[in-house]
């Protein structure tokens, strides 16, 4: 086990710059997710760490030592691929044994027929078989060891791929969207199992996904990547509650965060649709910006509602109800969360008033950077005016 350190990695494919100065430190035993939309460079970054791709500039360190010029086979990393990449002609047991055979047996001992009579082969083979069985027991696939990958379901194949990764003791595990070929139910189950595996092995995990839910539920830290850069790398709660940039706020969270255009005045007062809100920022210049409100930050209110509009759509998820409201004077929809027992009063077309929790309001400036230091003012509108 070892920590990883990525220092100022750049990657170009011809004219296109895929990674633009990415730096990231991953502690020993940490679970870090690289999350972002497709094409953001997250898989390329993982492949550079693995050594399957070479960076244009920058350095990768494993356990404090640079691996520049070292090929993937020598970096002692394990990788789980999106397609699982199991060898179709080998049984499950043989698949899991491949990394051990490749590292512990020499070319002669691996020969199909001659290998059997080479000295030391039997002892090594027994050792390997023991470790394969152990790995298979951890993943509960011991009963599948004699089958071929073609005879397994997607979930079982995924476990075999995990087994092949954990059978030796690598410096770190690299996982490239390992759950994206599974159905929704299995994905939720396997998610928990991978997190459990991480706790059990106490190993370093780097997990690439485009699914923010996977990233949120499994990781110690999330690195949100967009356009070849890491926009923010922090604990899941921090990324959700305290995003640095508007892109991060938009990407993390489902349903998506509501963004409303606001104006910031010289006094720091925030105005929405020309009306002052009970919210000020530390910034004392006149500017336009966005107000970000998560669906759970909004609540229904009757009087003095800063936002009014008609209900256009409701989604009942059983435990919670998401309501889309077409806001008057704004021409766009916002979504808020409520409990399903309010459903009766929330008919389509009904006019509702909405207020929000000022502590949970996120203000972003015109270029999308977070404007911090916001304060809620309990004073009423008339006094401020």
């Amino acid at each position, binding site marked *: 086990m070892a920590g990883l350190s990525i220092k100022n990695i750049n990657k170009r494919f011809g004219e296109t710059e895929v990674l633009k100065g990415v730096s990231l430190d991953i502690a020993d035993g940490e679970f870090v997710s690289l999350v972002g939309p497709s094409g953001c460079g997250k898989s390329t970054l993982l*492949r550079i760490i*693995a*050594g*399957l791709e070479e960076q244009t500039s920058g350095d990768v360190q494993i356990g404090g030592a640079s691996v520049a010029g070292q*090929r*993937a*086979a*020598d970096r002692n*990393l*394990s*990788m789980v*691929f*999106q*397609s699982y*990449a*199991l*060898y*179709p*002609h*080998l049984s499950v047991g043989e698949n899991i044994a*491949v*990394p051990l055979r*490749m*590292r512990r047996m020499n*070319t002669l001992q*691996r020969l199909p027929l001659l290998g059997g009579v080479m000295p030391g082969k039997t002892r090594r083979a027994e050792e390997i078989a023991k470790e394969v069985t152990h790995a298979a027991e951890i993943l509960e696939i011991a009963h599948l060891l004699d089958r*071929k*990958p*073609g005879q397994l379901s997607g979930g079982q194949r995924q476990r075999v791929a995990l087994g*092949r990764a954990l059978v030796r003791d690598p410096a770190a595990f690299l996982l490239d969207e390992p759950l994206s070929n599974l159905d929704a139910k299995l994905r939720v189950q396997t998610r928990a199992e991978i997190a459990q595996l991480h706790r059990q092995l106490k190993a370093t995990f780097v997990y690439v996904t485009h699914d923010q839910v996977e990233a949120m539920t499994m990781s110690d830290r999330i690195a949100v990547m967009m356009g070849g850069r890491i926009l923010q790398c922090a604990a899941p709660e921090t990324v959700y509650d305290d995003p640095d940039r508007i892109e991060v706020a938009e990407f993390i969270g489902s349903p998506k965060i509501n963004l409303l255009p606001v104006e910031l005045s010289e006094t720091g007062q925030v105005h929405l649709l020309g009306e002052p809100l009970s919210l000020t920022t530390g910034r004392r210049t006149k500017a336009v910006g966005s107000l970000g409100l998560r669906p759970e930050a909004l609540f229904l209110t009757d009087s003095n509602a800063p936002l009014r509009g008609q209900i256009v759509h409701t989604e009942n998820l059983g435990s919670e109800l998401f309501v889309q409201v077409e806001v008057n004077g704004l021409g766009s929809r916002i979504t808020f969360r409520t409990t399903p027992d309010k459903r009766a009063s929330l008919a389509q077309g009904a006019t509702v008033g909405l207020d929000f929790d000022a502590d949970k309001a996120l203000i972003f400036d015109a270029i999308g950077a977070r404007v911090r230091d916001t304060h809620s003012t309990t004073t009423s509108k008339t006094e401020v005016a």
Partner: protein
Amino acid sequence: MSLADGVPHEAVVEKTVSHNVKERRAAWILTGPALILMVVILLAPILVASLLSFTNYSLGNSGFDWVGFRNYEKLFTRSTYAKMFVATLTYVVTVVPISVGLGLGAALLINSLGRFREVYKTIYFLPVMATLLAMAIAWEFMLHPSIGMINRTLEMGCGTFLERIWSFMANGCAGHFPVWLGDKRYAIWVISFIGIWQGFGFNMVLYLAGLTGVHRELYHAAEMDGARSAWERFRLVTWPALGPTTVFVVTISCIRAFQVFDTIEAFWPQGGGPNKSTYVMMFAIFEKGVQQNLIGIGSAITMVFLAFVMFLTLIQRWLVERKVHY
């Protein structure tokens, strides 16, 4: 639908029965033409040939006698036919492994190229496209003992160091270089060489197609698993993935090798090379059945030929189903 509509139960049963009969009839009518064609074009000739192999029939004769297994007895006792089997098997055993190996090697090399792939592919495929009969004439000129390009080139080596290190060269310079097509020691190998030259491009194209089906991520997985050398990656990923292609390529090459005929007919139209050393089965069938009008013995060779090919096909089926399908 039935009882509610007031239709009696029996009527419904009758209706479904007649419906079934109609469906079956339609099925026979639709498959009939294909079945008839298959029997008339493919199965009947084989059946006729197998019957004729037990007779002494000649084309033009009004009748024939049943001779039992006498034709087959001749096949397995006379020295001419022993030479036929030796020549055929020598050719097959030489040409198949080498042309498959070269095909695979060329395909792997071409597949690793970034540029000029198409150029190489076309060049290697040229001999496959060319008519072997026409090519045979070109080869005949090149192999001519005195004015042929090959012996002329070899003569250029006389007087150099090659004479000292290569006894073949020394002997050639002292006396004369081989009469390639007229020497029973060389004839079958020359034919084999031309067979390989002509056939490996075809195998290469099949292997290139097979290589496109190898999953790229498997190479990355192999690298992560510690497969450092190209040979290890080949053993772990490429070769197993090419299993179905290999079975097909080997079978096709075998059948093509058994069928070798045009080079031999072009070089030695009078009968199977020096001392019958290149008297292959296809040529024997042609000579007996067509040139000498001995339909009975010709049919018998055909049946043995068919048995060989059938045997190969069955092995292929077995391998495909049992070993190389994952």
